Structures are given as structure tokens and as C-alpha cells.
């Protein structure tokens, strides 16, 4: 099986110029390959670089050294070097990213927030809305909230809107940063099912889950981020 994502020798440090120039080395020569239809769990305590790795793959954080090769439309593209236009395209079609918190836009309805990725892909408004309604129903967002802005929603509701938005379109690679953190057990199971469905349909899922139970339910390979250094060959699964 060919990997869809190859991380080669990446390093990341943060220099805090206004805090005595502190340098935080978060990743040091990290390498790993990721495969379609497989799930990888990133484990480790806070500060181990789990979220940082996800953000680097998404190019939200810049990578100091190394390469992040993403299979995008049958070609490998290095996210570290890619042009902005390529990154926009990769984010639109290849890599999905569900963050810990929803970035709420005031005055935009929950439904419109959820269907945005489809609209951007050029899906018709009516089709997108139909899909949006399905996924909102599945995530148990009461119908009377759909036309409201998510600004006023509870933390759990906002997170489900965020997940609905992340899962409405399918991506070959999905990055999940604590997607189940603030969910009740029913919704948690729904989300885990969504993830499993994505994996079954061939997505490569990389996720951070703090809940031990969730990790067990999902299964997949677990990576201990505290180890910092991985040899590419040892992670062939």
C-alpha cells in the first residue's frame, strides 16, 4: 500500500521573542508515513506536539526543516514548499481539519457554516443544504437552531457544528484535534461512527483523543509523541 502522507525529518521550534527569547523545541527530526483507510492516534501529554503536528500537516503552522509530502490529485506535494494556491486547493479537496474549537462567524447560520466546504467545492446550494440537514440531524442539533448563528450555542453544540462542517465533505486525509472533548456519550458514539465510516471509505485519519475509551473504540495505530524521534520504517503497519 502506498502512503498518502509522508512526513520526512521535520522539526519545529517556537521562539518567544517577548518572553526572553525562549526557544521551545516541539518536534525534532520527526518522520512518519500515513496510509489510506488507516487511523493513527497521536498520544502524549500536553506540549508533546500532537496539535502542532496536525497543524503543520495542514500548513497552519510553518515547518522549519523537513518535508511533508501529501498525495494531492495523484501527485505528491510538499506542504512545506507549496504555493498558497496549492495549499488552498489541498485544504479544499485533500486535507480536512477539525479543530478543537469552532471559529464562529457572527450572523452566519449554523447550516450555512456547515455546508461551506461543499459550497466552496462548487456543490449546488440545494444539494449542500440537503447534506447539511442530514448531518446536523445525525449529530442531534435541534432543527430550530439550524438557522441561528452558532455564536450563542453551547460548547458541545459548537463542537458538533464544527464536526458536521468537517465531515460533510470527504477528504483523503482527515486531521482531528480532540473532536470528542466536550461531547456527551451519545454524540460521542455518533462521532466515532463518523470517523470509522471515513476510514472505511478510504480516508487516512490522524487524530488526538484524550479519552482512553474513545481510543479503544477507534483502534488503529497509536503513536507516542513523547518519543520525538521515529524511524520511518518502524511505523509500517
Amino acid at each position, binding site marked *: 500500500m502506498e502512503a498518502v502522507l509522508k512526513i520526512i525529518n521535520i522539526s519545529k521550534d517556537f521562539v518567544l521573542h517577548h518572553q526572553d527569547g525562549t526557544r521551545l523545541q516541539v518536534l525534532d527530526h520527526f518522520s512518519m508515513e500515513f496510509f489510506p483507510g488507516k487511523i493513527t492516534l497521536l498520544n502524549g501529554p500536553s506540549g508533546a506536539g500532537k496539535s502542532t503536528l496536525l497543524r503543520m500537516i495542514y500548513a497552519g503552522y510553518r515547518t522549519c526543516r523537513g518535508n511533508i509530502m501529501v498525495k494531492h490529485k495523484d501527485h505528491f506535494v510538499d506542504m512545506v514548499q507549496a504555493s498558497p494556491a496549492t495549499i488552498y486547493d489541498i485544504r479544499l479537496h485533500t486535507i480536512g481539519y477539525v479543530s478543537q474549537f469552532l471559529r464562529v462567524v*457572527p450572523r452566519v447560520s449554523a447550516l450555512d457554516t456547515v455546508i461551506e466546504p461543499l459550497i466552496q467545492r462548487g456543490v449546488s446550494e440545494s444539494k449542500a443544504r440537503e447534506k447539511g440537514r442530514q448531518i446536523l440531524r445525525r449529530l442531534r442539533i435541534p432543527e430550530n437552531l439550524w438557522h441561528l448563528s452558532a455564536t450563542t450555542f453551547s460548547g458541545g453544540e459548537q463542537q458538533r457544528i464544527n464536526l458536521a462542517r468537517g465531515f460533510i465533505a470527504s477528504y483523503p486525509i482527515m486531521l482531528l484535534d480532540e473532536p470528542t472533548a466536550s461531547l456527551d456519550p451519545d454524540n460521542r458514539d455518533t462521532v466515532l461512527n463518523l470517523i470509522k465510516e471515513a476510514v472505511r471509505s478510504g480516508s487516512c485519519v490522524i487524530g488526538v483523543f484524550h479519552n482512553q475509551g474513545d481510543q479503544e473504540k477507534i483502534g488503529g495505530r497509536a503513536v507516542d509523541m513523547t518519543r520525538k524521534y521515529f524511524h520511518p520504517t518502524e511505523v509500517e503497519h
Partner: protein
Amino acid sequence: MTGNVPDKSLPLLKVQNLSKFYGKNMGCHDINFELAEGEVIGVVGESGSGKSTLLKCIAGKINTTNGSVFFNSLYGFVDLCQCDELLLRQLTRTQIGYVTQNSVDGLRMNISAGGNIGERLMANGMRNYSQIRKIALEWLEKVEIETNRIDDLPTTFSGGMQQRLQIAANLVTDPKIILMDEPTSGLDVSVQARLIDVLRKLVSRLRLSMILVTHDLAVARMLSHRLYVMKEGKIVESGLSDQILDDPREPYTQLLVSSVLKP
């Protein structure tokens, strides 16, 4: 002139070694960047960092000291700093939109809202009143101004409405690029939110190419794909919006980002 089809392989706008000095004082210095079609670039920085000067240079509102602004116009690649005034004026009333911070500078205050929107259409040769009227009404709706205000003077509008009217008056000719200079500053927060929302919708629906100058990082994040951080007339850092705001590298950018209160 290379015919009527813009070359897609070229960027929409290419700013090269652009400098502007006011006497000995630097407005902006050695600015280089490119804007692709459908892309929104935010230029952030504090007051006096040269971001408005940069925008005015790009819009041809002020003469540059040095450098070029290549614009991939419908007439081919044109250096806005070198082209003759006739062409520049033609471009600025058709293919380039410019929204000013103070709507007084961008609107005709003694002309009705409809007249303000219609002006660019008439300037481009439209001579049919009913047609102009119809388009003006459509645009009022798009920027969420009640259509029964079409014959009112902008002086009777609130600040937010004036800005939305200014945006409509600029977008009505479907410009290839739109330049915005602090469109949200000076407005109440609630009014700002509506303006930003209108802008956001227009940007995604019309796939606008835009350069947005703002000191408001939240506005910048919401609207722009990429950000340029300016300080003392120079670009100190650039990258995708989330890169700049979530992973700022330069001391100045870190200061800028950490200075923002998050409610």
C-alpha cells in the same frame, strides 16, 4: 496589449520593489508581493506602518518613488506606476475598485444612493435609466440596504450603510480587483460585524480578488487567505492567515498578535 483574455498563468497583481518616500520620510519601502485571482490578501500593522500608503500606490492614487505594480488587466499586463493617465483612469473606474476608510471620500454625498451606484455604470457607457435603476436596486439588496432608500442621499445613512453603499458602488462594474482601506474602522462593533458579514458573502459568492488593509486582526483572519505584516514601511512577515496569526515568527508579529484581547 495582448487581447482581451488575461493570462491565467500570471498573477493578477505583481508588486515589485515598490517604494514611496514623502521627502525624506519613508511611506513604504521595497515592497514585493503577488496576488492571484480569487485571492484575498490582508495587510496588517499599526497606524503609520505604511499600509495605506502601499494601497494608495497600488491604486494609482499617489505617485510612487520607485518600483512597479503590474496589473493583469483585460488589456494585458499593465504597470500602473508607468501607464498613461488615460488608461489608469479607465482601469480605476472599471477593473479596479477602491473602498476608502471614510465614505465621504468614496461617495458623492450630494447624489442619491442609486446615483452613486449608477455612476460607474454610466461612466462605462450605460445609457438606459431603467437598466441602471434595476442594477442599483439589485446591489442595494446585495449589501443589505433597504431598496426603498435608493433615492435617499448618503448623508441620511449611518456609517455602516455608507460603507456598504461604497462597496456596492465599487463592485457594480465587476472589477477584477478591489482595494479596501480600513473599511471597518470607525464603525461600532455591531455595525462592523454586519459589514464584515456582507463582505464575506460577496468575497465567496463573487470570488473577489482583494487587498484589504486593516489593523483589525479578527477582520483580517475572517476575510483574507494570506497576510502581510507591515512595520515602519516594510513587510516584516507574510504567510497564510493562520500561519501568521497562530504561528507568528517575527518579534513584531508576535507582539501584534499577543496584544489582541480575545473576548
